[in-house]
């Protein structure tokens, strides 16, 4: 078990050309990396889940984070939230292009919406990591 873990850790980094297109497409279009690697079923599930979560966040009028400096907690929350939002790829880009600019207002629905928007991006990061592992040959 320990040796197996050590072997896995010592695996060399696969060439960038093998995984970069899948990861980049996976960022731009949720599940896109899986579609590129011919994992259509899994790609469709990821696309539906991440897009569904993002759209629910928009319909709940969640706020998008902007990086802000200040005390450590403010910086951490806003920068982390911004990264989460951006990781939704084209969903984030389109919503910004079409002028979505919801200010942060009180209320549990808006609060859930903000969390939905960030979590959609975080789930897309998981999908990108999975696409990387498939492209690198570490997973079926």
């Amino acid at each position, binding site marked *: 078990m320990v040796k197996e873990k050590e072997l896995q850790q010592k695996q060399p980094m696969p060439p960038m050309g093998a995984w970069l297109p899948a990861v980049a497409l996976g960022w731009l279009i949720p599940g896109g990396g899986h579609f590129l690697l011919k994992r259509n079923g899994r790609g469709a599930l990821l696309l*539906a889940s991440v897009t569904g979560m993002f759209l*629910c966040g928009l319909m*709940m009028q969640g706020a998008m984070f902007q990086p802000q400096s200040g005390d450590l907690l403010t910086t951490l929350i806003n920068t982390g939230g911004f990264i989460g939002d951006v990781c939704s790829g084209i969903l984030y880009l389109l919503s910004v292009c079409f002028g979505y600019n919801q200010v942060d207002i009180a209320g549990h629905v808006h609060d*859930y919406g903000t969390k939905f928007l960030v979590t959609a991006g975080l789930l897309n990061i*998981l999908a990108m990591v999975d696409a990387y592992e498939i492209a690198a040959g570490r997973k079926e």
Partner: protein
Amino acid sequence: MPKMNLSHFEAAFLFSLFASVVMGVVTKRTDRDRLHYGVYTFGCFLLALFGLGWLMYFGHG
């Protein structure tokens, strides 16, 4: 953009559903294991949802 006005339970249920699907898809190596893990994760989300809900109910007195 149409607006959604959900209760705490509905929002948390939707959140659990989407998150469980993604976690099931990316975590395991066979389709059977993925399905099992997705259902397990969804069950854990719901358990936490009801557990914390009751905890807050009793906590408020």
